[in-house]
């Protein structure tokens, strides 16, 4: 029975998403969204999450905004020839049923000029904007 595995995986990930109190809009989910607590006065922070497209359409992330930061940009840390640098990404396409991990050392939301000092346990809202017009609000938790 070839259809079983994907269905089970789909069901399982749905259950996991619900359990994680995920943000969801039109089949797009963000799970485990967090910001690393930054040193006092830091001008730059990073946001991480697992972004999941459970819709049958590709979803293209084109921007992110937040009232808590001066600017939010989609970035990716790239290590080339032993040197780390950041490249700005103007958009990311999520294929149907694909998950993209924003994680340390890889894709991240670069959060500049926080409006207030963020401490462990704080929650901030970041709005992810997709080309389709979809806007997904995601609550990021500040962690150590």
């Amino acid at each position: 029975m070839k259809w079983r595995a994907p269905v089970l995986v789909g069901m399982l990930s749905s259950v996991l998403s619900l359990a994680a109190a995920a943000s969801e809009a039109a089949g797009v989910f963000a799970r485990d969204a967090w910001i690393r607590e930054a040193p006092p006065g830091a001008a730059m922070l990073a946001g991480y999450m697992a972004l999941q497209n459970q819709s049958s359409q590709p979803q293209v992330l084109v921007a992110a905004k937040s009232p808590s930061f001066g600017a939010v940009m989609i970035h990716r840390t790239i290590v080339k020839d032993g040197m780390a640098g950041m490249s700005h990404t103007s958009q990311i396409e999520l294929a149907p049923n694909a998950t993209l991990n924003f994680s340390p050392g890889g894709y991240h939301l670069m959060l500049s000029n926080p409006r207030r000092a963020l401490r462990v346990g704080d929650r901030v809202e970041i709005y992810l904007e997709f080309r389709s017009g979809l806007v997904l609000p995601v609550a990021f938790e500040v962690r150590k």
Partner: protein
Amino acid sequence: MYLGPVKQASLKIGILTAIVTLAALAAVWLAATYRESDSQARLLPDRVMTVFPAPQPLTAFALTDHQNRGFDLSRLRGRWSFLFFGFTHCPDICPTTLADMARVREDTAKSTAGAEDVQFVFVSVDPGRDTASRLGQYVAHFHPTFLGVTGDDAQLRNLAGQLGAAYQVEAAPGVENYPVYHAAAVFLVDPQARYRAVFTPPLDAEVISRRFDVLRKLEGPGAQ
């Protein structure tokens, strides 16, 4: 072919000498191989850490720490030093690596050897923005004992060059958030101020702690 009794005897001696020499060489080779594979088995089961068989003694450099004290070769003697190059306007890899280093320090403090003779040094390659006070605030967030150091470009190039830590600052007039590229590795300098090992990403604090502990044990007491 008949060689005569004298020639036959010398041929026998020659063959005997060759066999003895070969056996001796084989023994030396086996011993060397065994030693090498033994140390590799204990230190390099993965690609996290590369230990240099011939540690490179560092030469003089002059930087300044976050308390405006000179940071030179003497500050590396008598203790192990983990060095990481970065800048404070770095949202992802620098805080991630410093958080990893804080975990390594915690693990090391719990080990029998302790963390008394271990220091963690964040070298900012962006002295234009990273003042001493800014660096101090930044590193203290990760651990109160962490050191922030920086200096002019010539001195940064000096130390970075000795460790093979490439970096590039693309500062431009009027640009606030200019890009900075820097080595992603963590460098380990031994208590004799020799470049001893390098940890390459993806970094894993727990694995780094374990490898470091083994290296220190192999070194034995009196490594200073």
